């Protein structure tokens, strides 16, 4: 029984201490044999009074083997199902032992780890925030297939179980106790096993302690089974509520809802079987492969610093200067202060700077009001932010980030004015979504210390930072920007200094395709709705209204000045539409009194009727599938070009960047990963077909053609 320490004490209690090879206990190959041997031994154990499951690691038990899940392919269903039935069979045998089985939970128990806990008769957890409990499988396109759905439904009832299984809600032990998912808390880790043993002894005459509720006669699911009118009503409403969020693009929550309904309808063992089939089905889906690949493996790669230069010592920014207290600047100030960094927030006037700081006050006060932060903590964070109008206050900053208006001349001027106050060998960062870093760096005396740090709005909510290296930017500077991003709890991707960098350029292609469809005469309402139906959070027209059509027009003018107009493709159509909308019809965008949409006082919006007269052609026939693919393929092709041109350094950075930065649909696993499961050859064929029908912008990039020819994936 390698990995499990099996000890029986004088009271007849067997303690299984899980101490597997590697840093955590997990459902590896080793686990399966070990668990099988352990359960078999427990079943044969004589004069046993109870069993305690404990862990010798910091994590109690860490779920399934994701490598195995990614490798399973259609055709493997029967084998996969068999393996799964064995794993869940162990838990079933455990809970049917004639003695109480107790989980002594000393650390995180997520996914399969928590399912092990649910398969015990009693659960005691260390009351500490590090002990995260839950069933997050849905976030990787999977479902809790080792009894997680069936046990939570039988334990909590269908409605109460759904947040944990269908939304993957994770909770701390105190909340889990409240929810009824665990039974008892202890204050220190050291008490866990002794308390578990004491509970077994206290309950030696209690028959109920030895069985699960669902194995007792007369068991009723809390809230009722599917014959209960309220449960039946819930089942009528739930699919629609789910589709509202997922647009039918996410097989996992749909399958979970169905398995949960079956759990509320069938016998316990029947429902376990249905749950196994559900997971088997999900494991084979491209969506699960995409989500596991990107959200787990590539996320670990990115956060693990794969794009950070090697061999440079970790840096630690202590004082940051933020120039411009507008929307971006105030957000950067907030996230920096929250990371314990001293912030100098500078604007033209102290009033403006104070206003920028007020944003932090307002945001943190909300947290305090919700009980998520103490007044002291808030005061501490606010005290780190110094609003000012004086450049001299920037003295000693080891990082300055300018976040002023996107005007290259203004930015250059600011750089020249403020760089002298930077600490020796300090880093100068520019927050820009598209201006060339190399040109901005011309204003700097130390261009090797100059770097682009592209934040996304709203800064305190968006998890991504795009770091842009100019041609002179040093590896040390990159490392520093990378470390700073991580310190403020952002995920950094690293890109090169090409116009629009990686994210803006890719996103721009999506917006451009939307406007092209509009110009061709496609129905504007259907356009944004079809964009939603592929999983884009907002349609192209809605986005244009938010960023404003006027701004977009100005950006084109600025690109033209820089000699960078249309470097990534002809944008004549989009520019024409923008100019018609803004200059002829005064439709500048949402905050300019309306753009593609018109806005009601009550916050409602509808397509501006003028659009129909300007562009709509009711005789135009474009299949919906083509519209959806055009909106998606344009972005994918642009992302591939970014990868091909070396703008983005790695597939992982590209995937994470598109997901976190520009709202690429989660089901794709990022715009590059999409190609892998769509099929590289199929992608090339479809892109070629679209190119023939709609124009050369859909021609498959060489990098995709090459992968298809070699039969390789983007990794």
């Amino acid at each position, binding site marked *: 029984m390698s990995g499990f320490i099996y000890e029986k004490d004088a009271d007849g209690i067997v303690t299984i201490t899980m101490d597997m090879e590697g840093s955590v206990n997990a459902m590896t190959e080793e686990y399966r044999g070990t668990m099988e041997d352990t359960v078999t031994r427990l079943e044969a154990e004589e004069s046993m009074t109870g069993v305690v499951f404990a862990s010798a690691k910091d994590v109690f038990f860490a779920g399934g083997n994701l490598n195995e899940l990614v490798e399973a392919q259609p055709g493997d269903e029967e084998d996969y*199902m068999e393996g799964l039935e064995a794993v869940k069979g162990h838990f079933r045998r455990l809970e049917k032992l004639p003695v109480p089985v107790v989980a002594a939970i000393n650390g995180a128990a997520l996914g399969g780890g928590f399912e092990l806990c649910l398969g015990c008769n009693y659960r005691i957890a260390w009351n500490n925030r590090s002990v995260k409990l839950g069933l997050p499988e849905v976030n990787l396109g999977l479902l809790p297939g080792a009894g997680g759905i069936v046990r939570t439904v039988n334990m909590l009832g269908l409605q109460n179980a759904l947040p944990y299984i269908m939304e993957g809600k994770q909770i701390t032990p105190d909340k889990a106790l409240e929810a009824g998912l665990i039974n008892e808390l202890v204050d220190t880790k050291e008490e866990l096993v002794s308390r578990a043993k004491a509970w077994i002894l206290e309950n030696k005459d209690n028959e109920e302690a030895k069985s699960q509720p669902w194995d007792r006669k007369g068991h009723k699911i809390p809230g009722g089974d*599917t014959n209960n009118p309220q449960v039946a009503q819930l089942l009528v409403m739930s699919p629609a509520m789910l589709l509202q969020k997922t647009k039918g693009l996410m097989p996992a929550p749909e399958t979970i809802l169905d398995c949960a309904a079956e759990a509320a309808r*069938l016998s316990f063992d*029947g429902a376990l079987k249905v749950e196994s089939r559900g997971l*088997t089905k999900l494991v*084979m889906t491209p969506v699960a492969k995409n989500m596991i690949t990107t959200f787990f493996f590539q996320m670990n790669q990115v956060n693990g610093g794969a794009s950070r230069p090697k061999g440079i010592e970790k840096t630690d920014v202590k004082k940051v200067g933020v120039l411009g207290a507008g929307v971006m600047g105030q957000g950067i100030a907030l996230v920096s202060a929250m990371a314990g960094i001293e912030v100098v927030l500078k604007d033209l006037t102290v009033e403006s700077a104070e206003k920028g700081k007020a944003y932090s006050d307002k945001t943190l006060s909300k947290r305090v009001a919700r009980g998520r932060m103490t007044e002291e903590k808030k005061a501490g964070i606010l005290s780190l932010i110094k609003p000012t109008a004086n450049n001299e206050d920037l003295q000693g900053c080891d990082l300055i980030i300018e976040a002023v208006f996107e005007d290259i001349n203004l930015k250059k001027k600011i750089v020249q004015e403020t760089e002298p106050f930077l600490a020796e060998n300090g880093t100068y960062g520019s927050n820009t979504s598209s201006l060339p870093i190399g040109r901005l760096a011309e204003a700097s005396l130390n261009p090797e210390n100059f770097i682009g740090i592209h934040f996304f709005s709203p800064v305190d909510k968006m998890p991504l930072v795009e770091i842009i290296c100019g041609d002179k930017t040093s590896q040390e500077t990159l490392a520093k920007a990378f470390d700073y991003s991580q310190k403020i709890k952002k995920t950094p991707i690293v890109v090169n200094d090409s116009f629009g960098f990686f994210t803006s350029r890719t996103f721009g292609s999506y917006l451009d395709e939307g406007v092209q469809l509009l110009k061709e005469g496609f129905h504007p309402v259907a356009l944004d709705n079809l964009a939603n139906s592929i999983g884009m959070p907002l349609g192209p027209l809605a986005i244009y209204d938010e960023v404003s059509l006027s701004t977009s027009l100005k950006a084109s003018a600025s690109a033209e000045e820089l000699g960078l107009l249309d470097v990534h493709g002809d944008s004549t159509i989009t520019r024409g539409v923008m100019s018609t909308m803004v200059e002829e019809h005064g439709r500048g965008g949402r905050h300019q009194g309306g753009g593609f949409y018109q806005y009601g006082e009550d916050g409602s919006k509808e397509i501006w009727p003028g659009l129909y007269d300007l562009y709509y052609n009711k005789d135009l026939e474009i299949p919906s599938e083509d519209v959806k693919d055009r909106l998606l393929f344009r972005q994918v092709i642009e992302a591939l070009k970014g990868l091909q041109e070396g703008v983005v350094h790695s597939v992982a950075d590209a995937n994470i960047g598109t997901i976190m930065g520009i709202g690429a649909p989660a089901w794709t696993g990022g715009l590059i990963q999409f190609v892998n499961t769509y099929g590289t050859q199929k992608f090339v064929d479809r892109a070629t077909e679209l190119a023939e029908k709609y124009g050369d912008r859909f021609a498959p990039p060489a990098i995709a053609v090459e992968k298809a020819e070699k039969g390789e994936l983007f990794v």
Partner: protein
Amino acid sequence: MPHPVYIYDAVRTPRSKGKKDGSLYTVKPIDLGASVLKAMQSRLDLDTSYVDDAVFGCVTPIGEQGGDVTKMIVANAGWDQSVAGVQLDRFCASGLEAVNIAAQKIASGWEDLVVAGGVESMSRVPLGSSGGAMGADPEFVFKNGFIPQGVAADLLGTLDGHTREEVDAFAVESQRRAAHARDNGYFDKSVVAVKDNNGVTVLDKDDFIKPETTMEGLAKLKPAFEMPGQFGFNDVAISKYPQVSKVNHIHTPGNSSGIVDGSSAVLVGSEKAGKDLGLTPRARIVATAVLAVEPVLMLAGPAPAARKALKKAGLQASDIDLWEINEAFSSVALRYMSELEISHDVTNVNGGAIAMGHPLGATGGMLVGTMVDELERRNLKRGMISLCVGGGMGISTIVELV
């Protein structure tokens, strides 16, 4: 003149114990039903947009089987959106009634292609859970009289003077014939595997049959309907049939039909449908009949229904080569054979519901397939299918190969 009605195909699921430990318990009724429709579509390469309607029997149409389950099955099978669906309930005759109604739709000339059959997941939607006035409305019961079917089967056996040994012997033979037929592939033409949503086979052959059944084994089983009889139903029976001194409780789970899950589908159409779709008819529906007899005895309708069908068809019993009588209870089959003066040698030649189970709404459609398969296998011409039905009804259908 009615238009000729052809049977173009017939498929059915295997049958399995209709309880929580049965093989088909984890299969939803809409999936069970869809599995036969999918199989039929695929083996005929059927253009389902040609199908006018789907008529499925289901005797417990509540919960998962409620709300016109047939339309949901049609949709779940991925058949064309234009195909309608209706669920009907004529108790145990529902499946055959579905075939007969489909036949009448075609005969009228008003429709050209109809899929008929039935579905019943007795493990998931238990027998009797849909209620009904027949046994549970006191006013109705006082006026019309009612005894449970099992007691009625015992009454029928008592009236006919059958002994426990006779009904057990019939059951042993049913098991032997069913096992022989299954193991020699006689059912393979029609039985299609039920698969889960991963395409993994859940069940591909009947697994309810108990070939090891012996007289000795059956003799050990306790009468199943003695207790309800003693509660008062025996007295109700005797008040209706005063010549009976004592109801002889001869039926047990071993010589009654089994509670199972299953689904069936029969493709019924006009000559034109066959031509348009390039389908070859396998059989013709010659006549259908339904009637009712005395409702307390309840189970004596099949033979009268068979005679009614023969009369409609202008045939004699001697014109029928093979007979199928649903083995709801042994006494029902024995009564049917004696009343029609036919031999067990030509009746239920591949066993019946005692061995394979009786998935209420699906059974009639299954019997049509079984009959057509066997007529083809034996190179015979004509077959009669009959079932006893709650409320004293009986139903019959005559098919002949073309």
